[in-house]
């Protein structure tokens, strides 16, 4: 999320809206429809310790993104997706049909994930003047150092920040600390 904002893009998420009246799936559909770029991190697909079943929300959303691109109107054909996972080719064990897509591994390392996201967004969007991976990583480290102080001054609890509070914190911080 930090890298997306530092690169000048807007991070979207179903958690951005606290409108309990809108069904979660409808929120996801609306956000997917509005976004040209999608980043899906499959590394969270693990077996639940209690039920022994996998949590499959991320692959479901990835499928919706592909479907929107394939079957949507002309403006949806420009959609681009980056698929991230912890290990190379792990996806073959549970979602092998996506072979051939842009799938990259980050080894569970947030800094590597930042570099992958940065390089993909630059190559795909063809925007110039984007910060390098090292610069984003340094900014992110500095932001994380500042976060407890910022929350204390703002009267917020770091562990209970909403998606929108965190996005606001990140964007204001980037505007005054890059």
């Amino acid at each position, binding site marked *: 999320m930090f890298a997306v*904002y*530092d*690169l*000048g*893009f*807007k*991070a*979207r998420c179903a958690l*951005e*809206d606290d409108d309990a009246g809108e069904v979660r799936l409808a929120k996801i559909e609306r956000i997917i429809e509005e976004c040209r770029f999608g980043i899906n991190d499959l590394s969270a697909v693990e077996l639940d310790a209690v039920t022994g079943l996998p949590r499959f929300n991320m692959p479901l959303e990835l499928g919706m993104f592909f479907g929107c691109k394939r079957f949507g109107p002309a403006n949806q054909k420009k959609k681009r997706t980056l698929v991230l996972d912890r290990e190379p080719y792990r996806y073959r064990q549970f979602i092998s049909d996506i072979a051939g897509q842009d799938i990259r591994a980050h080894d569970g390392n947030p800094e590597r994930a930042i570099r992958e996201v940065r390089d993909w967004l630059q190559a795909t969007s063809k*925007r110039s*003047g*984007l*910060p390098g991976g*090292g*610069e984003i990583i*340094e900014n992110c480290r500095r932001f994380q150092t*500042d976060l407890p*102080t*910022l*929350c204390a*001054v*703002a*009267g*917020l609890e770091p562990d209970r920040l*909403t998606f*929108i*509070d965190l*996005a*606001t*914190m990140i*964007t*204001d*911080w*980037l*505007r*005054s*600390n*890059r």
Partner: protein
Amino acid sequence: MTRKTFHVYPSDKAWVVQKEGASGKKFSTQRQAIEAAREIARSQASGQVVVHGQNGQIREHATYGMPPIQDPPKKSSAAKRIRRAVGTVALKRVKATSTSARLSKK
């Protein structure tokens, strides 16, 4: 890594333009200070200008040669508090680095 943000803030009936880790320059009006900050930022490969209000809160922001930061998808109910906190903490650091730079020169 060199900072790219030029802060414009009020100080002792004047307005200061300052980058973190460097000494500031005073101007008699806010307009003059903002113009000077924009000029410096434009002359660099990339830079940004942030204007702080009396309480440190971020009031204006502009980028030059670097991507502008997008607003979040929705407005936070704590947006004012966050803006004030981020501006205050950033400004405090800028002023502190200026003081330490002066002390190290002595």
